[in-house]
């Protein structure tokens, strides 16, 4: 999997840094908690920019190359920020056979971006995900924490318009 690395400059706040330090201090006794620290860091910053990975590597006393290796291995770790509204369209099998690819294509076409990207105004980002476990509602997509089920491509305009307003 190829990760899109953000070119947006890092603008973390001292509060965020203090929270990250707290997490690191709680976990640095056990190096196997690296992924846990990275998950928490992603909750704090929204993604894992290079600067944050350096802080984690130094704080946990783990080589930066290993932190970077882990961040690029797992799909959940984002190296670029997501939009205010993060859209994930499920391409799990149950959704796929019921036409979720059409839904994804329609959203990409409407927003003019590809999966893994963010609109220039920072409002929307799209990703294709693998099964959120709501196969009974296939095809499914999520916008932040809102779940939309039993979709078809024609509903996309109406749903996105709600968030654009």
């Amino acid at each position, binding site marked *: 999997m190829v990760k899109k690395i953000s070119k947006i400059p890092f603008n973390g706040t001292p509060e965020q840094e203090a929270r990250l330090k707290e997490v690191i201090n709680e976990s640095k006794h056990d190096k196997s908690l690296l*992924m846990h620290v990275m998950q928490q860091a992603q909750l704090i910053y929204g993604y894992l920019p290079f600067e944050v990975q350096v802080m984690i590597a130094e704080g946990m006393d783990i080589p930066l190359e290993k932190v970077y290796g*882990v961040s690029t291995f797992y799909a959940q770790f984002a190296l670029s920020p997501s939009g205010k509204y993060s859209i994930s369209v499920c391409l799990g099998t*149950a959704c796929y*056979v*019921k036409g979720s690819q059409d839904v994804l294509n329609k959203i990409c076409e409407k927003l003019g971006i590809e999966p893994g990207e963010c609109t220039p105004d920072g409002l929307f980002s799209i990703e294709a995900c693998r*099964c959120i*476990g709501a196969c009974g*509602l*296939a095809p499914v997509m999520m916008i932040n924490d809102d*779940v939309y089920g039993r979709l078809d491509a024609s509903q996309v305009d109406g749903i996105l318009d709600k968030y654009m307003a």
Partner: protein
Amino acid sequence: MYRAHVLVCGGTGCTSSNSLEIIKALESSIAEAGLAEEIKVIKTGCFGLCALGPIMIVYPEGCFYCQVKPEDVQEIVDEHLLKGRPVKRLIYKEGSNLEMAKSLNNTDFYKKQHRIALRNCGVIDPENINEYIAMDGYQALAKCLTEMTPADVIKVVKDSGLRGRGGGGFPTGLKWEFTAKNQADQKYVVCNADEGDPGAFMDRSVLEGDPHAIIEAMTICGYATGATEGYIYVRAEYPIAVKRLEIAIGQAKELGLLGKNIFDSGFDFDLHIRLGAGAFVCGEETALMTSIEGNRGEPRPRPPYPAVKGLFGKPTTENNVETFANIPQILLHGAEHFASMGTERSKGTKVFALGGKIKNTGLVEIPMGTTLREVIEDIGGGIPGGKKFKAAQTGGPSGGCIPASLIDTEIDYDNLTAIGCMMGSGGLIVMDEDNCMVDIAKFFLDFTVDESCGKCSPCRIGTKRMMELLEKITSGKGTLEDIDKLEELAYYIKQNSLCGLGQTAPNPVLATLKFFREEYIAHVVDKKCPAGVCKALLNYVIDPDKCRGCTMCAKVCPAGAISGTVKNPHTIDTSLCLKCGACMEKCKFNAISKK
């Protein structure tokens, strides 16, 4: 004492269709009607019939409401709970004359099921340990710790014939025995809850609906194998499951069912939760352990097997969620009881996640040996829209498919393997005549290309090359030699990959080639996609009899490929057409089709 209980599903499917709001509305309406002392609302785990969510059951009648909306709640409270008159329009109906189902267990969907792993899902409140205990919870653990030796426990599990439900089908008792035999200062129990197979969600339902069963089973496993610490590795995509597990672990510790000196037996056991981060390969046991250790989740060569050198280099037993969910029941009711269900070499039940082109999507637990026909036609309610059943896909990206001609296959490990398919974790995706099998094979290969960890070259490079061949075929540029090359490559990858992911990655291609070779041939020789899915092989056409000349299609066409005058039939210039489908979506008269 309450006079009635209202159970509302709080599983992922129903939560996604708003069941939490229904619970809120119910509680406030009940309080308003002054019934708060008489009626209790309980948020349960998954009932299984996700297609009809949100689901609500009112006891003592067992009245089964489906697709309930928040605005229906007032009526249910006023009519049913206050006046005792069930709201007929919301009761689940089935059959041709839409008979009302009297109770859950009498519906076609539940009648043929036999619930062991899912026994408490949709029955108890998963966030309350007392409800689990009331359903004989932790009794099996008490029995093991006070009446049985570790060797006795292993013998019962072995005699039960339980095999791993995560995909491999390895005998569970044997696995436990291997770890038990190895001496070490520290051993571990690991629960694989990294349910990565897209389309399978039974493990999530067990964790959400009955988390204590997993805690109890892992503790039993710890006692049997000599481990004092356990890890549950859960997908980060399952937040409800993680939350309920955390609550359950806290409650078990409070009651002394987890921690030091459990049941005064001198046995200590502690549990940790670790979250995955979205890597399919971590469902492979050695990769999962590498991931718990905080590394990139790459698999390790076996041997040494985890029973010798597993997590943190110590002997480790790893089982998946559904396997563990069977354990307390086996120890409580004995090996013979469990072994009396199923077929000769596959005992007990299996949970399947029914999905795709089927009416009753959801979770079903059936005795091994049930035929695919019973699952699809009787339990699943058949294919919607009068379409024809084409194939059922099992085992996800590692599995194969069962074609319509083999619909009477009795489902068990060996029968599925014999037809080149596999049980897998239990995803069962039903496909109808509108699904292209080459496209499905491509879909799964796209998944494995994406999820290959990159450690060994047969998987990393081989799957990519297979993908390129499939793309060539679905875009109409393939030749008959490409099909042969695809098949040859598939066998190489199977034989030479390091772990289960690579060894099984070619299965979807091999299975579709075996049963649907003529579809591949149609793609390369006739340059046609018989199911009408592969875009490059389709042409959009306007039916002149149906077209009213409204000009909508011509306006929406981004390529200017549609021409015609007002009130006269339009035509599409196939050389300009981008095959985006915009015209078809806009046409109000169904005049445009793909051919």
